[in-house]
């Protein structure tokens, strides 16, 4: 019921949803992060640590499954170059009841932000820069440890 996918391919939301909905679930919460088109970024490139990335995502999903009563957990993260409007990450959590699905979904994306080895590089015209980690992400992940 855990599905982890790290790929250069575009993220197919409908397919991922169909995989989960085929499992007789009651509630599915999802989060999708996209390349913002409105802050001048022409290209976003995602680098990752092959092997360690998948293991980290698997661990995050396992921890969510231990913490909430889940029927399915999916994490799909794209890597490589992508353009504004494209999906960077999709997480899905399915459960018999909505609170578990909603909370697990928030947990998956909060933890992914701080615990999975991805790095973003933004290109604006001739200028390329590595995105800086944000303290707010660390704070968001830490609220699950209390």
């Amino acid at each position, binding site marked *: 019921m855990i599905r982890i996918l790290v790929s250069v391919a575009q993220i197919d939301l409908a397919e991922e949803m169909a995989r989960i909905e085929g499992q007789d679930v009651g509630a599915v919460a999802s989060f999708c*992060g996209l390349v913002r088109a409105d802050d001048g970024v022409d290209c976003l490139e*995602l*680098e*990752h*640590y092959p*092997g*360690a990335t998948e*293991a*980290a995502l698997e661990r995050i999903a396992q921890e969510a499954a231990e913490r909430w009563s889940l029927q399915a957990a999916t994490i799909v*993260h794209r890597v490589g170059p992508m353009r504004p409007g494209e999906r*960077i*990450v999709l997480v899905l959590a399915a459960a018999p009841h909505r609170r578990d699905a909603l909370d697990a979904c928030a947990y998956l*994306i909060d933890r*992914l*932000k*701080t*615990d*999975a*080895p*991805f*790095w*973003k*590089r933004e290109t604006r015209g001739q200028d390329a820069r*590595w*995105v*800086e*980690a944000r303290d707010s*992400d660390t704070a968001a992940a830490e609220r699950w440890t209390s």
Partner: protein
Amino acid sequence: MTLTILYFAWVRERIGQAEETVTLPEHVVTVGDLVAWLATRGGGYAEAMAEPERLRAAVDQTFVGLDAAIGNAREVAIFPPVTGG
């Protein structure tokens, strides 16, 4: 002892390569020692390792602090704080 070192993001860019295999001197015990030793190579290495507090690491794909021992690890990765999602 030989060790594979992986670099990611701007650490990789500054050093100019993604991976190398090194023979560790005896005094390199922790990941922090490794960072300090790499810095002594100068050039891109010195630049990449200049601010250890901006670096994160994994030993055999497990995330650790810079004070972690390298032990008999086969692979150490050095990289900036992660920014996925």
